[in-house]
């Protein structure tokens, strides 16, 4: 079944056509790659998918439901979570709290019940704490649970962002250059982790990445963007052999 369908998506900034007539279909359970030269519009596609920007043309469907032009909040509730190219953690909160914020909508006790400390509230808080710690364990961050997020080294911050996004229980997880700033060893670990996460949490993943090893290693299919337009689409290994892709993106 198709999880995500993007049809004729487009947006302009001033005179710049950042994304143009973009189409993409992702099936449930896929690990899908989005690549392309710098400034091709990959991050912009993510921004359109998550309601940061409103598309000028085109439509986006998640599980058949039209989410075009919805707010970020509604889109998250519909099942999309993401990480950011420029890390955006809650810097003044601890690692654990960052994940707990991700769990925000998983427990729905109200303001009043928190003010009165009703039993429901206590139980819910306990569940939140447990789930958050579980998630941190998946990313081996449990030791850092009580550290300020901003004091983590880069690589761990990226992992924390993924953990936080997963906390909101998405069906579709968008990762924007998760391996940026990691060395090959760490990247290899990350690949394992992404695969594991996909199985364990049963999410579909769409990721942007410039590290071809990672893309080849885990993405079944990819789409290549160039100047906002679709350049190639299909099974990873064969797309990467496409001479147009080599010319525009990979170099030789």
């Amino acid at each position: 079944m198709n999880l995500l369908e993007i049809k004729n998506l487009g947006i302009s900034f001033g005179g710049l056509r950042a994304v143009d007539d973009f189409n993409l279909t992702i099936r449930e359970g896929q690990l899908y790659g989005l690549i392309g030269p710098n400034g091709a519009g990959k991050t912009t596609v993510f921004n359109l998918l998550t309601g940061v920007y409103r598309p000028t043309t085109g439509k986006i469907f998640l599980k058949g439901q039209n989410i075009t032009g919805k707010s970020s909040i509604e889109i998250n509730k519909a099942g999309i979570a993401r990480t950011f190219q420029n890390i955006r953690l809650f810097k003044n909160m601890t690692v654990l709290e960052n994940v707990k914020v991700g769990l925000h909508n998983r427990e729905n006790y109200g303001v009043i019940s928190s003010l009165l400390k009703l039993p429901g509230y206590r139980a819910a808080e306990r569940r939140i704490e447990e789930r958050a710690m579980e998630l941190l364990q998946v990313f081996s961050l449990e030791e850092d649970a009580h550290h300020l997020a901003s004091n983590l080294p880069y690589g761990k911050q990226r992992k924390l962002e993924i953990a936080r996004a997963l906390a909101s229980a998405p069906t579709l997880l968008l990762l924007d250059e998760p391996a940026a700033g990691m060395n090959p060893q760490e990247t290899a670990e990350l690949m394992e982790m992404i695969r594991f996460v996909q199985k364990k949490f049963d999410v579909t993943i769409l990721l942007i990445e410039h590290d071809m090893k990672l893309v080849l290693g885990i993405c079944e299919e990819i789409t290549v963007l160039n100047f906002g337009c679709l350049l190639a689409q299909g099974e990873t290994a064969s797309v990467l052999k496409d001479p147009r892709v080599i010319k525009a993106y990979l170099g030789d």
Partner: protein
Amino acid sequence: MQVFISTLIDGLNQGSVYALIALGYSMVYGIAKMLNFAHGDVIMVGAYALFVSITQLELPIPVTFLLCVIISATLGFVVEKLAYKPLRKATPIAVLITAIGVSYLLQNIALLVFGSRRKMFTPFLKLGSLKVGGISIPMISFVIIGTMLVIMIGLQLFIKKTKTGIAMLAVSEDKAAAQLMGININRTISITFIIGSALAGIAAILYSAKYMTVDPYTGSLFGIKAFAAAVFGGIGSIPGAMIGGILIGVFEAMTTGYLPGNLTQASDGFAFAILIIMLILKPTGIFGTKRIEKV
């Protein structure tokens, strides 16, 4: 109709003073990213300096002007060095509170030195007024508007076109990166304060010439009015600060002039209400653009 036009001119008159003050304020605000609540008090000190040099030292008028600007600029420089510089790494709001402390300090020094009673200047800039179709406009207003325009354009050119100006913008955005460019942050911020406070000195001269009065609390009004003008015009926008100041003057004149009977008692509140409505309609001020934040 004539009353309306007169009131409008009154508003422009009053607004031009706010605008003049808002320019210096807005420049410091835009670059140092701090709400300098002590800016108005620098004006107050400048006005006292002028008062002393005119009425007590009896210096030649041009000298007193120069003195007023120099003293204001020096004060701004010193205050920045002593009170704000140690807070470079602090949150803007912590600097705001310190500025409030400085404001109290200057007020209370003035209170001790000059007493609580308002000082009145003897007229030192006699310019008369211009009569157009039954409405008389004091010449000093033209001087103020002229000065304001010159300063606005000058500041705009300085910040956008000169090396120091662009360095200021760089410092305001990212201090670490600015240092990597070889920009001396402390010097740049000092210059910002010196210019801002020199402008406060000029404002002090024109304010004194227009209203001929100063007391220790003169400045406290301006802090708020200039803040309102700078924000209303759009944060960081120099022309915005000017237009903002003028519009606030006009709102005030209109609410003063046209509220019926008992409502006149709340004219201040109505002027603020217009400000709020305008900001709700345009949440980033008149000339403000949405700060671009790429996600």
